[in-house]
């Protein structure tokens, strides 16, 4: 899952990014509205954490721009502006959630998780696919009830599949949502991760669709 953090205060940006990375997300950072707007326009993010008081272009303008351009990724506004006037303005501009500073980092992580889940159409924080269970709050994976140990990248790939079950996911899409923009992307590594996941979980769990990509669906369902 890929997250963009648009925040002009460097310390806070670093804290939020670090917390998100530790929670297993790939994180891009933007220090001002201009860069944030550009990244949001061009990269496929699963969630964007957006400050309102930004240099160059303010957060509300950036958000309005995205929504007008048809970009519908979930946006969490993280701001010191806590008046109802500004909250109403934020939601009316197209925000999906609104968190005011100062905040608890767990609160931010919980809201980011919830946004990703909601946008993928899941109601509960524990995702299931046949025998496999993923707790999005802790990142714990179990297979038939017993814990499975995954590396950070394996978890990212599995989490993306679990969120988008029953749908063919192309390699490009996977790469875009798993790596941040500075990562040296290599499609071969994806194949390696998938091979490892099949080995650690179950071989038939992730299907290959030649020339199109991969899919993961509960047993009995086909794509």
């Amino acid at each position, binding site marked *: 899952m890929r997250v963009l953090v648009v925040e002009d205060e460097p310390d806070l940006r670093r804290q939020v990014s670090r917390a998100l990375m530790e929670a297993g997300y790939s994180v891009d950072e933007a220090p001002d509205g201009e860069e944030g707007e550009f990244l949001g326009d061009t990269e496929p993010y699963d969630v964007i954490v957006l400050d309102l008081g930004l240099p160059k272009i303010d957060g509300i303008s950036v958000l309005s721009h995205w929504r007008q351009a048809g970009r519908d990724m979930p946006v969490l506004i993280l701001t010191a502006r806590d*008046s109802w006037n500004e*909250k109403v303005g934020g939601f009316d501009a197209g925000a999906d959630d609104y968190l005011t500073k100062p905040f608890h980092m767990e609160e931010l992580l919980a809201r980011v998780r919830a946004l990703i889940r909601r946008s993928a159409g899941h109601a509960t924080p524990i995702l299931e696919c046949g025998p496999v269970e993923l707790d999005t709050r802790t990142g714990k994976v179990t297979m038939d009830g017993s814990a499975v140990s995954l590396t950070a990248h394996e978890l990212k790939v599995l989490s993306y599949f679990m969120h988008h079950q029953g749908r063919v996911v192309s390699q490009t899409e996977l790469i875009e949502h798993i790596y941040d923009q500075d990562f040296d992307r290599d499609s071969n590594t994806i194949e390696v991760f998938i091979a490892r996941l099949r080995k650690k979980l179950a071989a038939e769990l992730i299907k290959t669709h030649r020339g199109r990509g991969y899919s993961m669906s509960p047993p009995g369902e086909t794509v």
Partner: protein
Amino acid sequence: MLGRSVSLRLILLSVAWIVATLAVGGWVLSQHFRAHVETSFDFGLQRHVEELLSYAEVTDGQVALTRRPTDPSYLRPLSGWYWEIITDGVVIGRSRSLWDQVLPVKPVPTRGEAASFFVEGPRQERLRVVAEAFSLPGFEHDVVIYFTGPAVVIDRATEEFTETLTSSLLLLGLGLMAAVVLQVILGLRPLKLVRKKLAAIHAGETERMTGAFPSEVEPLVNDLNKLLDHNADVIERARTHAGNLAHALKTPLAVLGNEADAMDGKSAATLRELVTTMNDLVTRHLARARAAGGLGVPGLKADVGEIASGLKRTLQRIYQRKCDGAGVSISLVNVRGLDVVGDRQDVEEMLGNLMDNACKWAANRVRVTGERVGREIVLRIDDDGPGIPENLRDDVLQRGKRLDEATPGSGLGLNIVYELAELYHGSLSLDASDLGGLSVRLHLPAA
């Protein structure tokens, strides 16, 4: 009093002027009239003098009258109409009306010049006298002729005139005073209009003074408008600065809080606590600064209906996953078209906090009811949550008091609303709701 009211000043000054002018004018006129009456009276006597002179003849070195004036006034005894003709101190003829009396005072006029004056007559009445001295051919002394008439004739004519004049002038004076009062009222009406517009601004109906004013008042109105604009500008800037400061503080507080969270031990807890306290302080004082800045700013009003529907939209999104994803249903009853005096953001803050509280505690229903009661707007926010027991209701309005420490929130919400409402001369009260939960009543002055 005289120093305070322009109307009274103008009216009193004008009245003083009118009284003085009319009094002087009346006096001059009556004097003039009297002089005129005397002149025509004298003219009549003069003609009699000339008539008598034509009857005087010199025979044997003596002056004798060939005839006597036939006017009956000069025959009736002591009528006041007398005549006398004198040469060299000797009376050679006198009117029958004089009877055996003599005209008492007899200044001798210069020859060729008719003299007129008043004397006291035989019956102590005032007499108007015309006297003239002539020289007759063949006679060495001057012949002096006196004719008199009762002065009461002159006095009466003058009196009558003065009476008529006085009543006319009195009427004129009253008319003028009425005109002055009318003029002052009409003339000062623009000032009254200015006052009315200012009152409207104070009541929050308008923000500036509009309309046509006379050229004398317009500069004042323009200056007032400039002052109002400047005032609004200063307040807006002060509020923006207060807001910027508050928000600039919150980001470092967030950083500090997060660092504290990442640390262990007692000092981390202290730090975390301090961050919370500082944040509460910033929030409280920002709200107060904003509200205090908005107080007394003329022309402020807020549309409750618009604010409530914006808040409803937002809160339904915030609480969309409450009750297993069913969300909270918020209904707005009769809030449309209700205007309260106050800054829009402040009213939004009050209503937002109350509705947010209601949503937080509600099982799934929140209802906002608006009503205009006299000069107040009463907003009732009801929820179907657990409510607050009667004995604890006063406590939740206290600063930082929270009944449930587990639900997120700093506990400032209700208290901030309470303070804001008091600043706006409104009030906040808690009650049990017919929906089963809490009913919060917010009273605000209607615009």
